[in-house]
């Protein structure tokens, strides 16, 4: 499994566990989960939810325990008596809220403050300036094309530029619509 898949599986597992906790009405420290470690009797519900196998579930549980999203309620190496932590519940709530209300606070306002930003040329950041940003990126693409470098390096540079534009934070800051990078890179 790659990093992205792993993060998605963590999100799914935490949302599932938080739903179970909230069903009981008890605080997180009062609800414990037992994941049977015997390979023939693993937690089938979690495995089905994550669409993985016992090894995959173990890997996800280990990551969650290591990052503090889950904790063992007593000293054991086994996956029994597992509790959701505040961090784990917070991540579950955040992912759930973001899926229902995809507009973060920075996007609901006209401008964004993210510290210092330097740019050569007349570059503006904020909603309504997408055209300007597109022009800058188009210029970069043209410069890459015109560069005296092997095709492979040009391709790599364009790929990195696409990655930059597609990054969720850059999307948020610049207000660039999804698929913009693919559109631009495809055009070149």
């Amino acid at each position: 499994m790659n990093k992205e898949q792993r993060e998605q599986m963590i999100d799914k597992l935490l949302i599932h566990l938080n739903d179970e906790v909230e069903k009981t009405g008890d605080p997180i420290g009062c609800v414990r989960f037992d994941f049977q470690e015997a390979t023939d009797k693993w937690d089938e519900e979690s495995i089905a939810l994550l669409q993985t196998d016992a090894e995959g579930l173990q890997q996800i549980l280990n990551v969650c325990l290591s990052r503090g999203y889950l904790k063992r309620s007593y000293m054991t190496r086994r996956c029994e008596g597992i509790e959701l932590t505040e961090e784990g519940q917070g991540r579950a709530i955040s992912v759930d809220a973001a899926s229902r209300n995809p507009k973060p606070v920075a996007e609901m306002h006209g401008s964004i403050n993210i510290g210092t930003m330097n740019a050569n040329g007349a570059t503006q950041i904020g909603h309504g300036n997408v055209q300007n940003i597109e022009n800058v990126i188009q210029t970069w693409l043209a410069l890459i094309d015109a560069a005296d470098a092997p095709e492979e390096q040009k391709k790599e540079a364009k790929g990195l530029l696409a990655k930059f534009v597609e990054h969720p934070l850059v999307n948020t800051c610049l207000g660039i619509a999804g698929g913009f990078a693919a559109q631009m890179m495809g055009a070149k």
Partner: protein
Amino acid sequence: MEDPKTTIKLRCLFCKSDQFVFPNEDYKPQPGDLIVCANCGRQNDYDSLMRVMKSHAEEWMEEQAEEAMKRAAKELEKELKKLSR
């Protein structure tokens, strides 16, 4: 002895970064807001961030109280030893 003090930062629930994107410098997040992490770009529920911060603050306070109790017990032991001489 000075009162113990500490600073607990809000940290992204996904990557632990303490940098967030705000609309402007004076912006104060409101309950229910989703705040974007400046490092990983993921949206954090502000209420959850506050709850995590509160639980870390409680843990720190418990540690401080335990330390203070230990110090007080040591002092008391010293005083009792002096008296018993």
